[in-house]
């Protein structure tokens, strides 16, 4: 019989991320599952199980670019319902931050973030955009101060 190996160093890492420490409050009641749309529409997404894996330190399963955590809809229903103030969605986002630290973010998120840091906006402005705005009588979109943004996140 094989014994499950518990690794608490993973929880310590997670505790250092803002909101990550709330995973410690989880008593596995499953209230989050009852209100989770991703749990309702898929066979494999289950916030209680994600919290359990977190508590058991199953890092290899959670911290991957194809981890189940990316299927979270970010709807905040679990945050609303959780009787323990675990704020499951925020724990999931903290897990995603660990993915970023370990360089295993899904490609889309990297691309999106780079655009944001470079331009200060998450959507690129093209000449077509400003032409359409002009047709509607809206002011031209100018560049925003991305240097300031870059300076504060260094």
């Amino acid at each position, binding site marked *: 019989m094989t014994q499950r190996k518990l690794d608490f160093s993973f929880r310590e890492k997670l505790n250092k991320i803002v909101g990550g420490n709330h995973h410690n409050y989880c008593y596995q009641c499953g209230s989050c599952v009852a209100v989770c749309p991703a749990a309702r529409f898929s066979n494999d997404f289950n916030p209680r199980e994600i919290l359990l894996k977190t508590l058991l330190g199953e890092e290899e399963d959670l911290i991957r670019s194809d981890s189940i955590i990316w299927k979270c809809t970010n*709807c905040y229903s679990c945050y609303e319902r959780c009787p323990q103030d675990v704020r499951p969605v925020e724990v999931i986002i903290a897990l995603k931050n660990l993915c970023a630290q370990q360089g295993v973010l899904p490609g889309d998120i990297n691309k999106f973030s780079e655009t*944001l840091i470079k331009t200060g906006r*998450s959507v690129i402005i093209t000449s077509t955009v400003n032409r359409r705005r002009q047709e509607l009588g809206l002011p031209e979109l100018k560049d925003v101060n991305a240097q300031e943004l870059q300076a504060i996140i260094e």
Partner: protein
Amino acid sequence: MAKKISVAPFWGCMIPVKYPQMELSVRKTMEPIDVELVDLDQFTCCPDPIYFKARDKIQWLTIAARNLAVAEEAGLDIVTMCSGCTSTLLEAKFMLAEDSELKNHINEKLKKINKEYKGTVKVKHIVVMLRDDIGIERIKASITRPLTGVKVGIHYGCHLLKPSQIMHIDDADYPSLLENLIQALGATPLTHREKLLCCGKGCMDDEMPLEMTHEVFDSMESVGVDCMGLICPTCFNSFDMGQILIARKMNREFNLPVIYFCQLLGLAQGLAPEDVGLHLHRIKVDRIMEMIGASERRLEMVA
């Protein structure tokens, strides 16, 4: 005379670039209800509460705090047009109020650009401003063409209401905000079983988002709505473009116009469909215009 209020509009990224019709509808509908919009050109992306926050919560919080500080410097409260921006800015305020050490840490970063977040600025989604600062009576007084007989299927989206501990806007399970506003326009708000379901956009999966969108439409169709009324550009993307995808991938056509709240407000204030950019929608709104007699006015204008 009613008191005029001045606010800083926070347009976000999606609205000005992808859905300028929403911006247009806000700019055109505020004057009759005595709201002055003072554009601040220093705002950046809020930043978005799903992708960018997934990368680094501290960076996300720092950029949000900078945006809040920009409004504080100008002495204006922020009005948001997108539920995502509302969520980011209000959650940032909540986190910085909850944890003074974190606030100091973020302010150290802002010091590099001579900014400071104090915590004085208020942030409201435009529908919340309409309810709390303008009021139903003043909205009603601005209406010249009530949307009589139009049955509007309401979609709240997720980030306006949840978590209520942060948002403080309405009951997250039994909200009434949009019902009351839609009613003020003379239209009939219709409740339906999936009124509070997520649009699915934040879920990184190939199939689930469309299944959720489909479920919302199925629910609205079952109660016989004429159009869908919503308040968020991300939800709009899921439902307007989403209907094209549902027709293609799931072989089901709903053909249900999707309309942003301020576009409905504009129609009720007597604006032509083009004045609130309804011609830019994938799903055409002609049937609604006929119901309220707006299409005839458009023909007159063309002639």
